[in-house]
């Protein structure tokens, strides 16, 4: 097996092992951290489809993360208050249904935002995705129905058929399973005909056009898939915290998702997983060390960008590019 393949199995395996070990040692807090890492990794895997494969520097992915979160928050809110949505649709506390709604809602949002943003490229694209993210942030703050700035609290974690989701390990395993499935999908996506064409748009747009493929459509599809996966992560994140607020839509959230992709290594399948684990570990260790841990995070990020462009997985696996 190549090093890349070993890492693609080993890094998620490490996350699973940490979760299970924490269970064996009865360290509930560590299980929660591992769950957080799995969810953020999922968001990163989503972003990486646009960023790593498509070269689309989206600084507005918190929009999809937040929409996923609000999909969960709104459905569960209507279920816990027994008030049907728009008078007809009852809420739900069933995770699979919530996930489906989160994926569709964030995918649709990505379709609209992408269709507009992808008319431009380069810095314009960065600024516009950031701006649309901010638009939803302010909308969430000013719309009072779901708590405005204060957000929505959900009293009970949502249900998954056959499992007690209030047991930390169970919820961790659910999140990890979702991550694993999406990782397998993303891995296959990268090697699919679409993945080849998408990666070509990142490298040379003129070439893609000359072979008769439309870069705009390829990128839009990547953006929608990317947004939908990040939205799914958002639903899980809200479920982990049993709370959703506009902060999930904030530009800092977009930045954090991007940072963990970069920390791990861009365009590497397991990069976001490594990045999320390191991010959570840094948060855990540095926060203990100093109240101002973001300074260290900033310094580390700066060093990675300036001197270690392949990220952590890049450092371990070398610069070898996947050939097939």
């Amino acid at each position: 097996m190549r090093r890349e393949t070993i890492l693609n199995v080993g890094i998620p395996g490490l996350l699973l092992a940490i979760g299970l070990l924490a269970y064996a040692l009865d360290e509930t807090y560590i299980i929660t951290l591992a769950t957080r890492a799995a969810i953020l990794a999922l968001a990163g895997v989503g972003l990486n489809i646009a960023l790593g494969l498509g070269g689309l520097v989206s600084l507005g992915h918190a929009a999809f993360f937040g929409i996923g979160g609000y999909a969960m928050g709104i459905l569960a809110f209507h279920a816990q208050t027994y008030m049907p949505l728009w008078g007809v649709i009852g809420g739900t506390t069933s995770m699979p249904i919530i996930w489906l709604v989160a994926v569709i809602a964030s995918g649709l949002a990505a379709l609209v935002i992408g269709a507009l943003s992808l008319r431009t490229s380069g810095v314009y694209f960065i600024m516009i995705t950031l701006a649309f993210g901010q638009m939803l942030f302010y909308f969430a703050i000013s719309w009072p129905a779901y708590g405005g700035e204060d957000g929505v609290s959900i009293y009970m974690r949502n249900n998954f058929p056959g499992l007690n989701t209030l047991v930390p390990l169970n919820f961790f395993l659910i999140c990890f399973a979702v991550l694993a499935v999406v990782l397998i999908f993303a891995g296959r996506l990268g090697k699919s005909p679409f993945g080849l064409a998408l990666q070509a748009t990142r490298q040379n747009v003129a070439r893609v056009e000359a072979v008769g493929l439309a870069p705009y459509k390829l990128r839009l599809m990547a953006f929608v898939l990317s947004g939908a996966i990040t939205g799914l992560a958002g639903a899980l994140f809200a479920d982990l915290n049993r709370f959703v607020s506009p902060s999930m839509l904030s530009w800092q959230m977009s930045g954090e998702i991007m940072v963990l992709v970069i920390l791990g290594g861009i365009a590497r399948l397991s990069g976001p997983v490594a990045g999320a684990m390191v991010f959570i570990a840094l948060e855990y260790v540095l926060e203990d060390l100093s109240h101002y841990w973001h300074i260290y995070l900033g310094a580390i990020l700066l060093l990675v960008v300036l001197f270690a462009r392949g990220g952590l997985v890049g450092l371990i696996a070398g610069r070898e590019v996947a050939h097939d």
Partner: protein
Amino acid sequence: MTDAILSTRSLSKSFGALQASDSVSLDLRAGEIHALIGPNGAGKSTLIAQISGALRPDSGSVIFDGQDVTPLPTVARARLGLGRTFQISALAMEFTVLQNAVLGALGQRGRAFRVLGKVMRDKALLESAESALQEVGLSEFRNTVTAELSHGQRRQLEVAVALTLKPKVFLMDEPMAGLGAEGSQRLTGFLDGLRHRAPILLVEHDMDAVFALADRISVLVYGRIIATGTADEIRANAEVRQAYLGEEDAA
């Protein structure tokens, strides 16, 4: 004019005061190599850009395979069967040589939105890509990363990708550039045979290749075609000698 597959009608394009294309009409017939020559800055690249769809003309039209394609973008023209190579190699540099060729084959087949199935295990695509690489002599480099190819090899890969498109017309922008004598000769021989698969509109600086290959030659000077004819006719044309070859004689 018999069976012109590709023709331009009075194409004009100006950038400010510069008239880059001045009522250019030329056509490409089945089975021929039509070479477009002209000194630097004559407007060859601008013309190619208008034919391929990268640039919209101010006036005039491009007719391809009986259809007015002037309003169509590059992608649509490529899908109709316009296979081009670029003057400055436009390849996916991080891909292997084979991946670039497979990308071409994928473009030819369409259905690029499949998210499952391994593209580099797709028999039909691989067959098309491998055979194109074979034809241009790049088979042994199939697993080389494109960025590591020599300049000349990139030119060959450009041609190979165009072959995978199985186009109705080839539009080749200086395919010989940087090839060296041996490579040039090899490619000349190859293009000689290729014209029977699809006609070639060839922009080229290598005059040996042009005069050896071209059924007809058009000479572009200051955005205007000053002469079109066989190699002998062009050699004998006084205006061409003065405007173009004359300069070379002097140098």
